[in-house]
């Protein structure tokens, strides 16, 4: 009969090996110093404060709305990357690719719908989060800068939804983006039907239907294949990158501004 190695000896060999200790620098010994080290020396957790106020983890105070917004963002990133393996942002292919994803690709329908519903959830929860922060007065100094970062993140969230809306390339999305981008015509100084446009066009020849804020967004004078490609790049690369950078700033500032605000 084979003698099994001593369990404690095995445990020691694993947890005190160089590989283990190079990854996890601190054990789970539950003392205040170790708890601080756990947070401060971990790349994922170091954005958090090393100590939490008891009220800050009360669900009835924060509703966890900001955390859930971030969770939904992560869901859209994970499912979105999977969708990118099948979707081609080209006029001839985009809609058939969506149909392929929806009706043939295994779990394609699940991924697409998770992406869509997580996006909806993100938009709803970002408003809920904003409402909570307003009602608890958490926008007040010293947190006023983080409120501004939050407003930028709200804009990024809405723009992500707007650009993602075009990608199925069906009638609904084309006309929705036609309507949405037509509002760009009225941009002051930069839209060809906005204030000052005629004067600027008379002087410089710019701010015409061909060269204005709307055609910059659309890549032409109407919603077409160039628009699809532009919105795809904005949706998959530009907006997530800017959003992620702002999120890092947003979370870091919570800690620097003294943690989650206290009850009034």
């Amino acid at each position, binding site marked *: 009969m084979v003698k099994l190695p001593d369990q404690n000896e095995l445990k020691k060999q694993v947890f005190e090996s160089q590989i283990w200790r190079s990854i996890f620098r601190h054990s789970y010994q539950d003392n205040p110093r170790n708890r601080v080290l756990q947070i401060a020396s971990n790349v994922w957790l170091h954005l958090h404060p090393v100590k939490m106020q008891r009220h800050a983890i009360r669900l009835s105070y924060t509703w966890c709305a900001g955390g859930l917004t971030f969770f939904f963002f992560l869901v859209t990133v994970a499912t979105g990357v999977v969708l990118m393996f099948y979707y081609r942002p080209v006029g001839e292919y985009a809609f058939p690719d969506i149909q392929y994803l929806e009706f043939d690709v295994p779990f394609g329908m699940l991924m697409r719908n998770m992406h869509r519903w997580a996006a909806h959830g993100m938009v709803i929860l970002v408003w809920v989060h904003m409402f909570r922060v307003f009602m608890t007065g958490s926008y007040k100094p010293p947190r006023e800068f983080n409120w501004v970062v939050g407003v930028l993140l709200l804009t990024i969230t809405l723009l992500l939804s707007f650009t993602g809306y075009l990608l199925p390339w069906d009638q609904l999305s084309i006309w929705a983006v*036609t*309507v949405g981008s037509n509002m760009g015509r009225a941009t002051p100084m930069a839209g060809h039907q906005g204030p000052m446009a005629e004067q600027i066009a008379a002087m410089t020849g710019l701010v015409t239907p*061909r060269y204005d804020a709307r055609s*910059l967004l659309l890549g*032409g*004078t*109407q919603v*077409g*294949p*160039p628009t699809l490609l532009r919105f795809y790049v904005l949706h998959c690369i530009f907006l997530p990158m800017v959003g992620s950078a702002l999120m890092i700033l947003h979370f870091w500032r919570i800690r620097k501004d003294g943690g989650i605000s206290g009850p009034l």
Partner: protein
Amino acid sequence: MADDVKDPAAPPAAGAPTKAPERPIAPITNPTHENHIWARRSFFGLAGWGLLSGTLGVWGTAFLRMLFPRVLFEPPSSFKAGFKGDFTVGVSEKFTPQQSVWIVKEAEQMYALIAICTHLGCTPRWLSLEQKFKCPCHGSGFKSNGVNFEGPAPRPLERAKISIADDGQILIDKSVQFRWEKNDWGKPGSFIPA
């Protein structure tokens, strides 16, 4: 710096011998170049920032310009729509699917209405039973002559330039618009005699 403390130009006050004398703040400029307009450090500092902002400015302009292509692969804005005799009095949808234009023939005149809603740019539908254009997006309605009468559209549909080509066909140019609110609808090019 010890020399500065003993500087006779700043003697300690007579009544307070123990108080440390105030040090004069040494100027940052190099004393051997004090007759020059620029200290070397300020010059190189400004030159560096200038170079950086100039480079970023040129690149930024290039990026912005690159986003406006010279050639647009969009359908041509003008087309030939056949002869006057091909049309009967009323609204013709013959060229709407391809060209987004209705050709309207009245007793006296013919004109081309651009099929873009003046509210937010959707394509209205011609409802022949009700004799009106109706936009599916937000419900704007236009009479057969293009004048808005219901829904959010703020102004009538636009007319495209219409003329007779050399071969006698109707020539329509959508890049030139005639707008009712600018009193364009009586101008030459906004209609042809029927």
